């Protein structure tokens, strides 16, 4: 059975930490907090991953909590979403060796909850307590044009996540649903609404191929959703000629309180979850089960009190092979932790 081993604890934030986001290629972790800053962390040396340092603190651009931070696919830019209703765009200045806020995107009526870049870096999505999802086009010279304002959620939108390969967006909401958004000749529309959770959906993540989504909810469960394209072999109806998503697995009884975050490793397919019950869990797909329409997943590792008595707000797998076994977690204790998934024989 695999287990999680604590590599390092990163101290520095002055308030609860909301999200952790790995650089797409380098060993840099960005974390954002109620202290209105983003901190960048990196190991102190190339051969000792137990010592980490804070190499930069991005501050001054947001007047309130920074709720979400996302790297562009090149890692040269970062976007920050804040309760102050703005999105900050940051660029690395190689000469000054620091990060500069080069643009501020305005438009949402109140708190922005999440920001995400599409896989090509051409689009940016934001979502807010104002119930809307905005899609922005990234133009040259740090210019961002709002392409679409999507207003079909009936409540606070908690998170947006892009498909790993296509320009397909998923959003999760306080209205208990997940929505899938697609483009049709410059017009964005809701292609499917995923119903099943009985309370707020806090977090969503695609698998490596983008044909499955995992979601975590206040109803204390995780759900795994599978996409069925038109003319699928299973005979699942696709009434509007659109792919439909169905729950193929529900993981319940694993967490005693709200599931705040889920992360699906693109490297080794494990799912990690973080909860208000103070625990971190790792799930593995049962490979003996060959029924793709009713897969079973097992909890294979658990860390109770991973951030002491505090809620854990986010978990995030390292995005590529280099350190695919690394998992970052952040909590209400203001701490950032790096864990390593160890496979025992």
């Amino acid at each position, binding site marked *: 059975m695999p287990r999680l081993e604590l590599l390092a604890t990163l101290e520095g934030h002055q308030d*609860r930490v909301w999200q952790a986001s790995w650089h797409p290629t380098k060993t840099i972790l960005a974390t954002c907090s*109620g202290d209105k800053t983003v901190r960048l962390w990196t190991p102190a040396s190339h051969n000792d991953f137990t010592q980490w340092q804070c190499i930069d603190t991005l501050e001054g651009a947001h007047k309130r*909590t920074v709720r979400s931070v996302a790297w562009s696919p090149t890692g040269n830019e970062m976007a920050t979403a804040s309760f102050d209703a703005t999105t900050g765009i940051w660029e690395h200045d190689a000469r000054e060796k620091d990060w500069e806020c080069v643009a501020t995107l305005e438009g949402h009526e*109140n708190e922005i909850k999440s920001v995400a870049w599409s896989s090509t870096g051409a689009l940016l999505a934001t979502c807010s*307590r104002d119930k809307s999802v905005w899609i922005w086009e990234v133009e040259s010279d740090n210019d961002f044009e709002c392409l679409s304002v999507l207003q079909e959620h009936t409540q606070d939108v908690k998170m947006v996540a892009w498909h790993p390969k296509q320009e397909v967006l998923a959003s999760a909401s*306080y209205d208990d649903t997940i929505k899938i958004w697609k483009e049709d000749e410059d017009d964005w529309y809701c292609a499917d609404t995923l119903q099943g959770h009985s*309370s707020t959906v806090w977090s969503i993540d695609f698998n490596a191929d983008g044909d499955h989504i995992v979601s975590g909810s*206040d109803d204390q469960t995780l759900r795994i959703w599978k996409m069925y394209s038109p003319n699928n072999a299973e005979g699942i109806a696709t009434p509007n000629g659109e792919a439909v998503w169905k729950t193929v697995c529900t993981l319940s009884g694993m967490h005693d309180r709200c599931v705040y975050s889920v992360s699906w490793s693109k490297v080794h397919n494990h799912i990690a979850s973080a909860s*208000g019950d103070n625990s971190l869990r790792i799930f593995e797909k049962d490979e003996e089960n060959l029924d793709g329409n009713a897969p079973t997943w097992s909890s294979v590792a658990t860390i109770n009190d991973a951030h002491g*008595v505090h809620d854990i707000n986010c978990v995030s797998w390292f995005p590529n092979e280099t350190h695919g076994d690394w998992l970052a977690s952040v909590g209400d204790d203001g701490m950032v932790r790096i864990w390593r998934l160890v496979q025992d024989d």
Partner: protein
Amino acid sequence: MSTNLINANPTVYNTKTFSREETEAELDDDIEDPIDADEVFDLIRSISDPEHPLTLEQLNVTQNQHINVNNSKNQILIEFTPTIPHCSMATLIGLCIRVRLLRSLPERYKVDIRVRQGTHQSEGAVNKQLNDKERVAAALENNHLLEVVNQCLATANLRGREVTSH
């Protein structure tokens, strides 16, 4: 008194019915006293109502028998009773209770705050909002709202004692 109050003439209850008895064990420093429902009640009983110069105890909004403390699980459930079923202040009252407990209880407790079943017409919506920590965090960054909350909490440390005349 202005006429646009949500509940202009609330029933006022006698607060003398509850006083916390100190047991011998509590006076002995060598014995650990776990936090109990009475102690949590004592923390929130004197929070002021947002629109009346009365405490939550005087309005019967909070009662010690509607507080459940589970020390082995570090969980506290508080159920409160809005004075009227359409009270638009219910969320604010719940927020005041939450902030008071955030500030006074050990961090290990997970606190759930709900309106008592059947006492509010938007029970589900109020409960959901009060227990969404992200929305609570955002609300507390709103200076106007924080000021209102702090006003309601200004009397909270009376812990059942009478307000002395101004």
